[in-house]
């Protein structure tokens, strides 16, 4: 299994509070991703990073920000959590050097915003 951890694994927070989710990898992979998973929507990309301090938006980036100051860590921040951000969040990593290009996923974080 790829060395990817996410913290916390579960979190309940109140509307309007800031929340930061952490993804940590031990594989030294260049690319890191944050997805959210909701029933009926599959996995949707929030933000991704293609190197330290290099990030870009995905399809559902509104209300989220990210930071990557080290290769191994990718942080997802909800500046002011809303109930619509209740979801399961997955981090993934990949390395584009050579094929086969798949992404490896962390165990997920279940976030509930009340």
């Amino acid at each position: 299994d790829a060395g990817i951890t996410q913290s916390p694994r579960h979190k309940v927070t109140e509307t309007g509070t800031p929340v930061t989710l952490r993804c940590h990898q031990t594989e030294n992979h260049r690319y890191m991703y944050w997805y959210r998973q909701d029933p009926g929507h599959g996995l949707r990309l929030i933000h991704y990073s293609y190197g330290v301090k290099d990030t870009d938006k995905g399809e559902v980036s509104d209300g989220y920000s990210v930071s990557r100051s080290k290769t191994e860590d990718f942080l997802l921040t909800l500046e002011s959590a809303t109930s619509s951000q209740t979801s399961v969040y997955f981090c993934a990593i990949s390395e584009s050097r050579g094929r086969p290009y798949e992404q490896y996923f962390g165990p997920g974080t279940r976030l509930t915003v009340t």
Partner: protein
Amino acid sequence: AQTVTQSQPEMSVQEAETVTLSCTYDTSESDYYLFWYKQPPSRQMILVIRQEAYKQQNATENRFSVNFQKAAKSFSLKISDSQLGDAAMYFCAYRSIMNRDDKIIFGKGTRLHILP
């Protein structure tokens, strides 16, 4: 933009039988990767099988095989001798070779139930 469509939200199969999950995709590219991921109740996303578009031979991993029809843009997953542990959500996914950002586009998933 590429899209991935899984038209079967849920499917059921009897234990030990064979089941096929459908996936179609839309792209104008000629070289790409396709994947099937499995997500059991534990929520962990597990890569089941991958297919390189330039390879005509269908990929196989033990009881899992694909039927890759490039012209039809179809990529179905066949599970033979279904087992209770195969019960999961299955996601079809597409990855462009031309894009250097490694982004993967996922379908919405098919939930597979195994009937004992």
